C-alpha cells in the first residue's frame, strides 16, 4: 500500500522548465534552453530571463572571473549542480498518513565542440526513487540511485541565436506535448515519460516563428523490464495558430513496439498565453496491443490534462490543474485528479514550490490526497 500510494502521488516535478512563458510570447523552449526540447541548462539569453523572472529581478551579468572562464573553457562549457528536495505528505482512504523526503542531485553539462557540435549529459543521484506506476501491462523501468537521464551528441545547422535546425542522438526523455516538468501527471506517467524513461534515440528539431517540428526514432534504454524494450518513432509538431506567439496548438504522435506490447499514441495539445495568465491542455489517446499468445486484445487509454495558471508576479505563479485517466477493459481504470500549485522563483538559484494533489479512483472510491513542499537550488551556470 505504501509503495502504491507513493507511486501514484509522487509529484516529481523538477521545476526546470517554464512552459508558462507562453504568456509572454515564448512559443517554444529553444529560445532559452541549450537543448531545443527544453528543460536543463539555459543559454545566456535564458539565464538573463531566469534572472529577470525571479524575485530579485536583476540584470544578468556573465562572469568575468578569469578562473571560472578558464574552467568553462572560455565559455564553451556550460554546467551546474542542482539539488531538488521534496517533503511530501500523502495518504489514501483507509491508509495511514505517510511522510517522505526525497532528495535529488543533478550534474548537468553541455560542452560545445566547435561551432555546431555539442555534447551534453545529466547525471542524477537520489535517495528515494519515484518510478512511474507499475502496471500489469506496462511495468515501470528499474530505478537506480545513480543514473544518466540524458546523454546527447547534438549538431546545430548553424551557430548563433538565429539557428533553427538541430539533430541529436543519444539517450534522453522523448519529446512531449505540453512539456510540463511534473512527471506524475497522467499524460506523462501513463505514456512512458517518467523520470527513468530515457530511451536511446535520434531526433530532429526544426523551428520557426510559428512552427516547431520534432520527428524522432527511439530504441530501448536498457533499463526496461524483460520484454518491454521498446523501439519506435514519432513526431511532435506544433503551430502558432494566430501568429502572435501565444496560441500554440500541436500534436505528438508515436508508435512503439516491444516483444510484449505495442502502443500507438496520438496526443493533441495546446499552450495558450494571455499576458498574466494562460492555459495548458493535452489529451492523449493511447492504444496498446499485447503481443503474447493468448493475450488480451487491443485496449485504449485516454489521459487528459488541463491547467490554468496565473502569474501574480513575474516570480510568483499559481496554477490549478485537473486530470482524468480512463483505461478500457481488461485493465479498466477510471481516475480523476485535481491540484493547486504555487511556485515562487526567489532567485535564479532558489525556487520554492508548494503543491497539493487529490486523486480519486472512481472504480473503488479511494481518494488519495498529497501535499508537497519543494525547494530547488542550483549553482550559477
Amino acid at each position, binding site marked *: 500500500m505504501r509503495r502504491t500510494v507513493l507511486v501514484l502521488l509522487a509529484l516529481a516535478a523538477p521545476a526546470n522548465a517554464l512552459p508558462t512563458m507562453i*504568456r*509572454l*510570447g*515564448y*512559443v*517554444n523552449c*529553444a*529560445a532559452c534552453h541549450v537543448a531545443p526540447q527544453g528543460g536543463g541548462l539555459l*543559454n*545566456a*539569453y535564458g*539565464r*538573463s*530571463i531566469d*534572472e*529577470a*523572472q525571479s524575485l530579485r*529581478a*536583476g*540584470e*544578468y551579468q556573465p562572469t568575468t572571473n578569469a578562473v571560472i572562464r578558464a574552467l568553462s573553457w572560455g565559455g564553451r562549457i556550460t554546467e551546474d549542480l542542482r539539488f531538488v528536495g521534496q517533503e511530501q505528505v500523502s495518504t489514501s482512504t483507509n491508509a495511514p498518513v505517510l511522510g517522505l523526503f526525497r532528495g535529488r542531485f543533478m550534474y548537468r553539462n553541455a560542452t560545445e565542440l566547435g561551432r555546431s557540435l555539442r555534447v551534453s549529459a545529466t547525471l542524477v543521484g537520489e535517495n528515494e526513487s519515484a518510478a512511474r506506476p507499475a502496471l500489469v501491462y506496462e511495468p515501470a523501468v528499474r530505478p537506480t540511485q545513480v543514473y544518466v537521464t540524458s546523454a546527447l551528441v547534438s549538431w546545430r545547422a548553424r551557430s*548563433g*541565436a*538565429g539557428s*533553427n535546425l538541430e539533430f541529436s542522438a543519444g539517450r534522453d526523455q522523448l519529446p512531449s506535448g505540453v512539456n510540463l516538468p511534473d512527471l506524475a501527471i497522467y499524460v506523462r506517467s501513463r505514456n512512458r515519460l517518467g523520470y527513468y524513461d530515457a530511451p536511446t534515440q535520434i531526433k530532429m528539431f526544426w*523551428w*520557426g*516563428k510559428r512552427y*516547431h517540428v520534432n520527428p524522432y526514432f527511439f530504441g530501448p534504454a536498457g533499463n526496461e523490464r524483460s520484454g518491454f524494450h521498446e523501439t519506435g518513432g514519432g513526431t511532435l509538431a506544433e503551430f502558432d495558430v494566430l501568429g*502572435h*506567439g501565444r496560441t500554440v496548438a500541436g500534436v505528438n504522435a508515436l508508435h512503439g513496439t516491444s516483444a510484449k506490447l505495442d502502443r500507438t499514441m496520438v496526443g493533441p495539445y495546446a499552450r495558450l498565453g494571455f*499576458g*498574466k495568465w494562460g492555459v495548458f491542455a493535452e489529451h492523449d489517446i493511447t492504444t496498446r496491443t499485447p503481443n503474447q499468445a493468448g493475450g488480451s486484445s487491443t485496449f485504449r487509454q485516454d489521459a487528459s490534462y488541463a491547467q490554468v495558471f496565473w502569474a501574480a508576479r*513575474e516570480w510568483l505563479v499559481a496554477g490549478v490543474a485537473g486530470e482524468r485517466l480512463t483505461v478500457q477493459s481488461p485493465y479498466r481504470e477510471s481516475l480523476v485528479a485535481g491540484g493547486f500549485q504555487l511556485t515562487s522563483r526567489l532567485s535564479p538559484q532558489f525556487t520554492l514550490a508548494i503543491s497539493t494533489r487529490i486523486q480519486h479512483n472512481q472504480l473503488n472510491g479511494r481518494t488519495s490526497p498529497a501535499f508537497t513542499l519543494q525547494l530547488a537550488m542550483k549553482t550559477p551556470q
Partner: protein
Amino acid sequence: MTKHFAPFVCLFASAIASGADIAVEGGAASFVVSTSVPAISVKGKTTAMHAHARVQQNADGLQLEQIEASIPVKSILTGMSIRDEHMRRYIFTTADGKTPDLRFEAAAAACSTSICQVTGTLAIRGVGRPFSIPLKLRGDGATFHVAGDSTVRLSDYGIEQPSQFGVKTSNDIQLHLEFTAKEAPAAIASGGRK
C-alpha cells in the same frame, strides 16, 4: 458611407457640420516586434493614450483637423519589468537622460467612408519623423470605435536595434491602435468650437 458609420454622422450631424472636438482618454496602443530568434517576439501595450481632434462634416465626408495624440513612455509595458527598463533605456531615453512622451501631430486627415488616412509627425525621444496610419472607424451611438495598424522603423529615428545576449529585435515595430473617441465635454456644452 457604411452602415456602421452612418448612425454616428446622423446623431451628431448638426454638431459636426459646424465642427466638434472629439477626445480619447485611455486609448489602447500595442506593438509587436520580432527578433533574430524565431521563437521570440516582444509585445508591449499601453492603455494610457490621450488624443483629441476636431472633426467636421463636409460634402466629401468627414474631415479631421488639429489631431494630437500622446502616450507616456512609462505606461508602455511588455510583461517583464527588466525588459520594460531596457525598452525605456534603449528606445525612449534621450542623450540627456529624459524620456519624453510619444507625441503625434497631424494638421488634417480626410476620411473616405469608414477609413481615415492620417499622416503627420510622430515624435520619439522628442525627434519627429513622418508617420502615416490608416484608421478604421465604426460609429456606435455617440462614439467612434477606431482601430489601425502601421509600422515604425527604429532606424528612421536613429535608434539602434536593442540586443540582449544575441537576441536582437527587428528594425520594424508593428503598431496597433484601438480606442474609442467621444465628443469632448466642452464641445457638447457649447455645441462645438467655433
